[in-house]
């Protein structure tokens, strides 16, 4: 598999959220603002890269029968170690990201990539796959977060400076002044609505491309967990 394909797959064609429909729990739960989506996405990306490389490097001596528990032990250990390290040495960042980190263990896109990619591919390719998938996930979460935030509260990237540092305060925009907000978009139904519409949009786009080029699009990989 070419690196450029890995890259395109992760960012768009086989996007974790929009194509694989994986990691729905964080996708719904932490996308109330663009900033939260971005934070969760970046933390997940870091874990995806390292977890993929770890799984890939043990792939030759882990037998079929115990591979899933082995992956889970590896991923859970990694996340816990990252959690402790951040808490100890980057405490201010931890106070912002801390609540996302524990959620990453439960994100099945990490296990999904271990199983679907890293278990068969070399270490470097697996690392790149983790990075591409992670950034695709980050993009999706940030997009959903921004839409919900804009309609729900009239802002964009609220409190971004808490996550990224004061130099990113320029990202914080109050787009609609004196806007009461549409609470529905911040509450869970808003997550389902936005995700549903985005999925429909992506499907429509693929359909239009298909009829334009006359070729059939690659079947979406679906791993359920």
């Amino acid at each position, binding site marked *: 598999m070419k690196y450029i394909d890995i890259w395109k797959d992760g960012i768009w064609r086989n996007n974790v959220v929009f194509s694989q429909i994986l990691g729905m729990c964080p996708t719904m739960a932490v996308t109330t603002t663009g900033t939260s989506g971005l934070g969760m996405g970046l933390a997940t990306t870091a874990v995806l890269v390292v977890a993929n490389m770890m799984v890939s490097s043990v792939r030759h001596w882990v*037998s079929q029968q115990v591979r899933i528990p082995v992956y889970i032990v590896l991923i859970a250990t990694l996340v816990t*170690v990252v959690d*402790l390290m951040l808490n100890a040495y980057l*405490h201010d960042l931890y106070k912002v990201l801390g609540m996302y980190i524990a959620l990453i263990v439960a994100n099945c896109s990490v296990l999904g990539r271990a199983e679907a990619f890293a278990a068969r591919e070399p270490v470097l390719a697996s690392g790149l796959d983790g990075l591409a998938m992670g950034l695709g996930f980050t993009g999706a979460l940030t997009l959903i977060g921004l839409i919900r935030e804009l309609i729900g509260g009239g802002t964009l990237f609220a409190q971004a400076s808490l996550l990224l540092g004061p130099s990113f305060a320029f990202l914080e925009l109050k787009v609609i002044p004196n806007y009461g907000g549409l609470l529905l978009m911040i*509450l869970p139904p808003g997550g389902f609505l936005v995700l549903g519409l985005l999925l429909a949009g992506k499907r429509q786009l693929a359909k239009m491309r298909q009829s334009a080029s006359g070729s059939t699009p690659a079947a979406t990989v679906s791993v359920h967990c």
Partner: protein
Amino acid sequence: MAALVAALRWNRSGRNKELNMNLAQFREKTLYHGLSLGAVSLVAGLALALTDNTTHAAIRAAEARDLQLSLVQVLPAGFADNDLLKDQTSIKREDGSAVVVYRARLQGQIKGAVFQVGERGYAGEVAVLMGVDYAGNILGVRVVKHGETPGLGDKIDAAKSRWILDFDGKSLGDPTPEKWAVKKDGGQFDQFAGATVTPRAVVKAVKGGLVFYAAHREEIFAK
């Protein structure tokens, strides 16, 4: 000579092949599955123990620093000149739980106290740190730990909203007991649109803290 080398070489590769065969067979055995999973778990356990060991002190220090910063936040500047973290006492509440109270002194004189109380919020406990002067008037309140919904309930956080400052200067008598509630419950504190449970929990926690302080004041400063 060349024949000998060739023979040796053949022998070695033959042995390797046999070894590989045995390994391949062994990999299909349940014993190998157990052993490999056990080995991974052992390494994972060691890594966790090692990380915990190396980070423990730093995490403790960071938490103490956090606490110190919060303590300063709930007291006006220049209110106390002692090291509150060192001047602490533990008081038993009526329900059996213990509350750590930090005593504020200025030039040795008792000025007030800082302590942490909690109440069940929408998603787990909301922990509130509050500073009161000796008479029982609130000097400051900060939510130090919560798991409330981002964008909704997290407005109790001083970094996100000024709501928590409404408590400054309040006491058990002001407002009157029945007004110590959110507006929806007939009280005088604002709730947030879509999130009543969270501010209700904070109001309840703060009121509980004042009741606790009033009931235990002598005990707090006796030790």
